[in-house]
């Protein structure tokens, strides 16, 4: 197997995730897209780990999974808070940062 086939797959997933983050209005869907991005990274980590026969890639993939779990927990808590305050989780309505 070529290394590149995995890397390109990961790149594709990453870009699809970025697209999702950019266009989705629903905050939960944005979080899902972020998961796609993180998984792309994981594929890269494991692929490089296999290439060099180093267990470090897998270890860090595991760490990423843990971090992703934390991220989803916090992210959903924020979404809930946002829903409670605004009765909506539409990101296009959240524009308090407008200058």
């Amino acid at each position, binding site marked *: 197997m070529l290394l590149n086939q995995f*890397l390109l797959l990961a790149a594709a997933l990453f870009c*699809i995730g970025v697209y999702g983050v950019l266009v989705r*209005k629903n905050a939960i869907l944005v979080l899902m897209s972020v998961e796609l991005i993180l998984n792309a990274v994981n594929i890269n980590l494991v692929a490089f*780990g296999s290439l060099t026969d180093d*267990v470090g890639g897998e270890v860090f993939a595991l760490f990423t*999974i843990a971090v*992703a779990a*934390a991220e989803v927990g916090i992210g959903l808590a924020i979404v809930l808070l946002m829903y409670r305050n605004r009765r909506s989780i539409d990101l296009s309505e959240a524009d308090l940062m407008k200058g």
Partner: protein
Amino acid sequence: MTALLAAISSDADIMVAQNIFFGVIAAVMIVSALRVVTSANIVHAALWLVVVLAGVAAQFILLGAEFVAVTQVLVYIGAVVVLFLFGVMLTRASLGEDESVAKEKRSLAVAVGVLLFAVMATALIDTWSDDRIVIDEPQRVAEVSDSIFSQYIVPFEAVSVLLLAALIGAIVVARKD
């Protein structure tokens, strides 16, 4: 042609089988991922996400990282997706059509995505064009755990503290006062 085949070692069949599997799974993943980011129904999107995540787990197995694959299934499909569905339920996000994104915005996002992919693909093909992954045997779980608890003990502890912080943070943020 025969010479070429002979040049590839005796485990060529395995390589071919692996590549076929990879291709099929990758195709399914890409399609599912596209559905995740385009599906108008939020529950459908979550289910498509399950397919992508399962595909990633399959790729991990192809790469010989069985423990990561199992963890992927347990944590992502078992916990994270369920969490998403809870989020959908609690926020009563509209389950039906909700996406009416302005064309302008969508085209900007497509442009960004394609540009990113183009840059990355160029770089990757340029750099790693002939590196091959040879999997003799899957990585043993014992090795992974040994290395987590010796070489990577500090990041491990950091992650555990992070999880604790996230736990507390999530409670603080989400609880009703």
